Structures are given as C-alpha cells and as structure tokens.
C-alpha cells in the first residue's frame, strides 16, 4: 500500500513536560488510521506537528507525494479539535473562502458544497448566517470545509465529539467512503466503538509514548483476550483456581474472569467446576474500549499480560 505520510521519532516538550517521546507511524493511501489515547496523551500535539501548526523539537514528518519542502497544505484537509467558524458570515461564503485558501477552483467548489449540504441534511442552508446554525449543523459545515478540496490526506481530530448518533453515522459513512476512494485518513477519537467499527489500523498513545500500534485485527488478537462474565454468587478464590484465569473482578453478584491469551473457549468451558452458580454466562473478547480504559486508568492489564509472557 502506498504510504502518504511518515512520522518518525517525533519529540516535543512544553516547559518541563515532555509531551511527545519519540512517536513514529505511517498513514497509507485509502486506509483509516486511528490515533487513540486518553486526554492529554499527546494526540492533538502529534496532529498539530504534522500540520505545521507546531514544530517538533526533533523527529521528522515526510509527505511522500510531495516534492519540495514544507507541508503540501493544499492536499491536506484538517478538522481540528478546537474548531469554530466566523459567526457573521454565510455558510456558502465561508466554505468558498476555505476552498479558495486551498487553491481549489471556485465553480467546482460551489457544486461540491451544494452536494455535501444536501448529503448532510443542510439543503437550503447555504445562505444562512453561521451564527444561526445549531452546534451539530456547525460541525457538519466544518467537516465539509475540511474535505471540500478533495484532500489526499484527511486529518480529523475528534470528528465525532458533540454529534448525535444519527450525525455520527453520517460522518462515519462519509469517512469510510472517502477512504474507499483512496483518501488517507488520520483520525483521533475517544469513541472506541466507532473506531473499532471503522479503522483499519490504530496507534494508541499514552503520556506521549506508543502503547499499541498495528492493524485492528492484530491488536485484537494480541491484546483482546477472552473474558468470561458469570452472573451468580460465587467464591472469588474458587474462581481464581480455575485453569487459565489471570484475574477476577467481582462486583455485586457478577464476576468477570480474564482469561489467558491462548484459551480455546469451547475447551476452557469444560473446565468449569460443576457446582458453580450460573444465572447467566457470557464469553467474549475484551473490546477496544476496555483495552483503552485499562491503559488510561493504568490497571496494567497489558503489563500483567506481559509479565505472564515473560
């Protein structure tokens, strides 16, 4: 797959705090690459460095489709986390201005703007003043602004924040279809379920360091062990004695058994003691969401697993 942008050894400090400690990754053409991490992990800082809004202390960012120095701003679409629009202007005017700044032909932009407004349920809003739009409508207009010039690389920082589920779905579909058309997409988000549904590869970052990097499938295979949830009152010691159980979390009458990586669920189920109280039993892989929470709260699930492997 063709690489659009390579980030290598990115480091950045604010005052005494080191925000990025050697971040490296690539974004390929036609894929959705997600940067995940808790607040303050360094996601936005990484993105701002790629966009040239900040300059890294060390490390390099290479745009492969671009000859010459600097950032090919015309080929990049960017939706920042902190975003807004000029208030007292018309929707059409501001979108045309944004297209003009990217050197995109005005007449072509007009057609695309109208098409996208229609797609996003904003038909007929082109001559409405921005201040009259609701927050969600404003977000849609910002999104249109970031893709109006058909960018080769689209960087979206928290695109789903503040959107209702319907709008989230519209955004998700549009992002997916852009990727299918060959746009390289770098996306940061907190909404794990959405990321899990749409991203091809992910880069998880905490305290400025890489935690996980790989395809969604690999990550899930590698980190998302099976877990078994049992509803019923059971003794925790007894549960811990079951083979291949790494850790047990008990809350009220439900117990969550974190299982060993190589467990075959059907085989493992047969090892359950006969006298266990089971009202309900569920066995599934740990979701990205749980991995994320785990990292964010430093529960050390991954480290624990690492120790087992050591």
């Amino acid at each position, binding site marked *: 797959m063709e690489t659009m942008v390579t980030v290598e050894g990115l480091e950045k400090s604010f005052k005494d705090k080191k925000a990025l400690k050697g971040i490296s990754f690539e974004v390929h053409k036609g894929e959705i690459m997600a940067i995940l991490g808790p607040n303050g992990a360094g996601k936005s800082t990484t993105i701002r460095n790629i966009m040239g*809004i900040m300059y890294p202390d060390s490390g390099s960012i290479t745009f492969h489709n671009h000859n010459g120095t600097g950032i090919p701003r015309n080929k990049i679409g960017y*939706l*920042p986390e*902190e975003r807004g629009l000029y208030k007292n202007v018309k929707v059409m*005017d501001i979108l045309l*201005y944004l297209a003009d700044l990217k050197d995109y032909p005005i007449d072509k932009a007009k057609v695309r703007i109208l098409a996208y407004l229609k797609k996003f349920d904003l038909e007929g809003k082109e001559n409405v003043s921005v201040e009259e739009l609701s927050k969600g409508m404003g977000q849609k207009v910002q999104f249109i602004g970031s893709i109006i010039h058909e960018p080769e690389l689209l960087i979206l920082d928290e695109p789903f924040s503040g959107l209702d589920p319907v709008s989230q779905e519209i955004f998700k579909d549009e992002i997916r279809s852009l990727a299918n058309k060959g746009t390289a997409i770098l996306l940061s988000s907190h909404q794990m379920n959405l990321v899990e549904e749409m991203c091809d590869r992910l880069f998880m970052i905490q305290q400025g360091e890489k935690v996980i990097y790989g395809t969604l499938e690999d990550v899930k295979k590698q980190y998302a062990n099976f877990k078994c949830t049992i509803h019923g009152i059971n003794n925790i010691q007894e549960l811990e004695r079951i083979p291949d159980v790494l850790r047990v979390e008990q809350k009220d009458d439900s117990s969550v058994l974190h299982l060993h990586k190589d467990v075959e669920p059907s085989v493992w189920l047969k090892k359950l003691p006969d006298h266990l109280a089971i009202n309900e039993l569920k066995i599934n892989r740990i979701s990205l969401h749980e991995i994320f929470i785990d990292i964010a709260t430093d529960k050390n699930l991954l480290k624990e697993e690492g120790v087992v492997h050591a």
Partner: protein
Amino acid sequence: MRNSMKVAKWEIKRNLKNKTFIIGLFITPILFLVFMFIGSMFGDSDTAESETTTVFINDQLDVYPALQEVVEQSELNWEMQTTELNESEVTDLDKEENTAYIFIDEVGLQSGIIPVYTSDEIDPYFINQVQLLSAPLQAIKISQLGLSEEEAATVMQGVAFIETTEETASVGESPDEAGLGNVERLVPGIFAGVILLSIVFTGMAIFQSASQEKKDKIAEIILSSLTPGDLMQGKIIGYFVLGLIQVVVFIGLILPFVLWKTDIPIIEYLLVPETVLLVGIAILSYLMFAAIFVGIGATMADVTTAGNFQGMVMMLPFLPFIMIGPVLSDPSGLVAQIGTYIPFTAPGVLIMRLTMLEEWPWMEIIISLAIIIVSILIFMKLAGKIFKVGILMYGKNASPGEIWKWIRA
C-alpha cells in the same frame, strides 16, 4: 503573498457585507455633516442680516459714480440709492432696518465730517465699511487744492505700518497672500489628518479581528491552509483597504459640502507635492499601529477582557492628541521636536508640524521618517512572533510575561 491577498480579499468582503461596518462607514461622516450643517445654519442667519444694507446718499457734489465704484470694488453688500431727502427730514429710521443715510455736501467736505444716519439695526461693520468712501472724497478735496496729479497721488498714498518678519521678507509675500497660503498649506495637512484618523480607527478593527479569530476558534482551520505570517499580512492589507474605503466615503460626503459652503479651491490646494509626503506619513502610521494591534489582538481571548497592558497599548494612537496644544502653539518648540522622535507620536506630530510650518525642517523630517520605518520593521517582526503563538491560544489572555517569552523564542 498570494495567500495574504486571499485573506485580505476575504476580510474586505466580510466587512463590506457586515451591517455594523457599513453603518459605521457612513455614520461618522454623516454626523460630521450634520454638525457642520447646523453650524452653517447659524452662521447663515448672521450673514443674512448683514447682507443687504440700503444706503441712501444725498449727493450734492456729483461723487455718486465714484462712490459706487468703491463699493463695487470692495464688494460691500450695499444697495445704493440717491435721495433728495434733507438731513432734517430723516426721522422714520426707527421703523426701518439696515438702512443708512449719508449726506455729502460742501460743508461736510470742508469740515471733514460727513453725517451718517443709520437705523437701530445695522451691520456692526457698517461704520468701518463707510470709511472706505473717504478716499474719493479726499481726492476731491486734494484736487481742490490745485496740486498736480503726481503730488495728489503722493498725498493720497499715506503711511501704513505693515508687519514684516525676516521670513516673509525673504519669501516676499505680502501679508494678504500669506493668509491665503495658510489655508493652502492646511488643506493637505487636514487631508492627511483625515486619512491618519480613518485608517488608525479601522486599524483598531484589526485588533478585534485578530482576537475574534481566537474567539471563533477558526484560527487552526485557517492555519491549516496558510502560514501565520500570511494570515497576519492579509489582515493588515485587508484592513488598510477598508481604511481607504472609509477615507473615500468620508471625503466623498464631506468634500462636496465644503466646496458648496466655502470658496476655498480645495482640489487645487490638494494637488501639490506636499500632499504626497503627508499622506505617506499617514500610511506609515497605519502600518505601525496595524502591526501593534494585530499582535496585541492575538494575545487576547476577547476584546472585553482586555487587561491593563492591552488597554494601554490600545491608547497609543491617541498619544499625539495630548501634544496638539503645545505643538500647534509652537510648531518648532521642544515638545514638537520630542514628539517627532517618538515612534508612536511621530506621524501625528509630524503632520501637525508640517501643516503649521512654512519652512520644512528636512533634517528632522528625514530622521523622524527613519525612526518610523525602523519601528514598523521591528513591530512587524515582533507582531509576527506574538501572532504565531497567540492566535492558537484559545480562551485565555496572554500576560506580558508570556508575550515577552514568545518574543524571545
């Protein structure tokens, strides 16, 4: 540069579509006109009274044509008529307005006292104007003495005291022409002053525009398409054009009114080389304050939350106003000279001085211009540094300490 022009175009378009800006554009000159109009209405009522003075002359010496000539030459607003009325018959003057009776006869000529009867209400300058008539009468008196024409002319010339300073002597202007020259010099100065004020006021809009960029949180979106330098330059250029539009509207509304109300040939006075320098100074002044404002605007989250530091910077363009008094009373004095060398006051003071002074102090002008240009370069550079960091700092005002750190970075 291309990106700067795009930003400039956008700022111009955005403001011209904004009702507040359009109203502001017209309200200043219209207010100005309204006050001028009210003023001239009162002025008119005064001059209207003085306009028609009916003067009846009982002429027994056949000097009426000569008197008429004098009145015409002096452009007095008199309506002259001859009358056969006697002095004793002038009784009903109480009932009339702006009427005077003059009795010219042999007795009056010999005694040198011509009786003038006026109504109660009469132009206060009438009695001065009447004195003009003494010349033809004196001529008659002299001719009666039998002097030759040459001798008569010598006697008539009389002696006058005329104020003559060294400068006027060297220029060789008569006092009358010097008075006219003042207006001539004032016109380019006032013109430059209008430009200076208009674009400095519009320049303050830059400041709002920069902080608005932060308030609306659009800066990062815009900066993904261009560099902070482009954005800053674009704003400076855009608001400069908006300032010029303000000047054009201002002058377009005021000039016809001034031309209609006064006889000053403004256009003629304006098309002189001096105007170029004065307007140049005004433009330099704009660039300096625009750089300062765009930088300071980028440090503020909201205009309403301006701290002391920002507030003080906002007042800088008004510094020359403090100096108006001393500079006007002594354009070559110490205060004026000091003002010429302080970057913030230099443009304003320079325009005031050049308008007042007849001989331009070229050395001071050149030094002052150099100071202004160097300041512009420095402020532009500093503003660029401040703008780059400040524009992305949402929701917080920068402290002077932080600003200092950005400048040093």
